[in-house]
């Protein structure tokens, strides 16, 4: 059995009268890809924002490797080993690919805010930068300004930035959004390789990709978890078929 890297227990988030996330408990294990699916408005993005710390829960708790991080700010969580990529591409648009990834690595280095000396001094983290860029296949494009990359390349860069922070847990919010099938193939392969020594949570709409990638699946509806477990079990769960996949349940 794998260790639980990130655990949410009884997580609740209320926006005024709307209960966006209601009593959600989820365990993300190291070495596994855990997919969260559900119709629009099911609370998936709210859940990811609660886990990453951009929203604070109304109640419930979040544990990272057993330590309570419920009230930590996003930057403190990042330094504790939690990396995230956004649904809408979120980069330093005016900086080069290399600089984007270098900043990510710098954030996790031992002296992230050093005021003396340049950024090119022989630092151990510079190796992490080139490795991350190689890993996502952007080596030939490392001097290009992020704004000038294609949509697919920007998604690759997002993942390179997450890798460069060397996280133990990775949160990916719709990594395949807006991608063509061929571009998506590359990213799917990349995501599959991420779980080697990490825990990965992915929110995704592309069902083929989800069933290809996920070791474990959680289905949400109206802010609640309606099923969780192995993909083959969830696929035949009658509640899921009725609520999310449609009564005739035609999934691949």
């Amino acid at each position, binding site marked *: 059995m794998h260790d639980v890297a990130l655990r949410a227990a009884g997580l609740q988030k209320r926006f005024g009268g709307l209960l966006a996330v209601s009593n959600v408990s989820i365990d993300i294990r190291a070495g596994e890809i855990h997919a969260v699916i559900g119709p629009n408005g099911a609370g998936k993005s709210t859940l990811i924002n609660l886990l*990453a710390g*951009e929203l604070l829960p109304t109640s419930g708790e979040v544990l990272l490797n057993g330590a309570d991080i419920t009230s930590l*700010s*996003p*930057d*403190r969580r*990042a*330094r504790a080993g939690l990396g*995230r990529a*956004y649904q809408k591409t*979120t*980069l*330093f*648009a*005016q*900086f*080069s690919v290399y*600089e984007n990834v*270098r*900043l*990510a690595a*710098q*954030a*996790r*280095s031992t*002296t*992230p*805010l*050093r*005021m*003396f*000396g*340049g*950024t090119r001094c022989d630092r151990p983290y510079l190796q992490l930068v080139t490795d991350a860029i190689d890993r996502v296949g952007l080596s030939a494009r490392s001097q290009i*300004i992020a*704004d000038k990359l294609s949509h697919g390349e920007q998604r690759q860069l997002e993942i390179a*930035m997450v890798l460069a*922070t060397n996280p133990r847990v990775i949160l990916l919010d719709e990594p395949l959004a807006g991608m063509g099938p061929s571009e998506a193939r590359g990213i799917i392969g990349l995501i599959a390789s991420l779980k080697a020594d990490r825990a990965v949570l992915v929110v995704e709409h592309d069902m083929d990709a989800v069933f290809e990638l996920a070791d474990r699946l959680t289905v949400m509806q109206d802010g609640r978890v309606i099923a969780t477990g192995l993909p083959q079990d969830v696929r035949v769960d009658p509640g899921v078929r009725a609520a999310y996949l449609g009564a005739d349940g035609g999934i691949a």
Partner: protein
Amino acid sequence: MSMPNLRVRLFGIACLAIAIALPFYVSTYYTQFFAKALIMGMLAMSLNLVVGHGGLVSLCHAAFFGLAGYVLALLSPRYDAASLLTTLPVAILCSGTAALLIGALVLRTRGVYFIMVTLAFGEMLFFFFHDTKFAGGSDGISINIRPEIAVAGRQLLDLDKTMTFYFVVLGFLVGVIALLTMVVRSPFGRALAAARDNERRARSLGFPIFRLRLTAFTLSGALAGLAGYLAAAQFGFVAPQMLGWHQSATILVMVLIGGLRSVTGPLVGALVLIGMEEVLKAHLDNWKLVEGLIIIGIVILLPNGVRQIWSMVFGASPQRAAEIKPAAAEARHA
């Protein structure tokens, strides 16, 4: 070293050579004039650390400038010279501390709220000096004798000599340029620029945004204090106007004229603005009107500041060109 980089260095060395030679060729009046312009340039460069590199438009920068001037005025004995070596660090420390305290409060706000709250704090300090009897009230306070640079009673430099004072200012200016260049290129400076471009992403990578910006704000305020000390020493007089929002806005105009993306751009902006005022004042009655029109023209035609002329004439390095284009697009959208 690439060719454009070499050209930039040669240009910098040429500018320094001109600045050194200048007082030997112009009258005392113009030596004083350029010392004043360089002090304002130093002030504008210090503001640009926050505005250009940090992306935070502050309207209380003059408060840190004026505060240091008041510190010198209050520390100066009536009939004797204050020691620069002790009063300057105190003045810088006071301005830096004020920036740290004000920054700790205002940096909790964003965007237009940040501008308004900095304005409020700046005006608070202005009215503190304006409306209380402390330090001369609205009349200001004189510094009868310039501070001296002396060790064990022996004077090293005579700041009463216009040329000596000019060279002291030039020396500090070179030091400030070196310091700011180092900070902007350091990991700290890169993180500051990253937080400007995308705060949410910078935070999710693990950068402590508040601490980052507060450090920049404090450093910027301390350097404004250095400029304020020198300005007070030059004029021999401080008044509440030195801290007011009008002064803050003027520095901001210098930054905009010079360009936001470089260390020395605001220095160029200060020289252009002050030089332009000097020329227009001498020839026109309605000079403020003409000045306004020229500033509007510069901002519309050169959205990256007058430094843009450099890249138009010499061609930009690929990296700079890439930085300039998005900045221009950004300015047009704004």
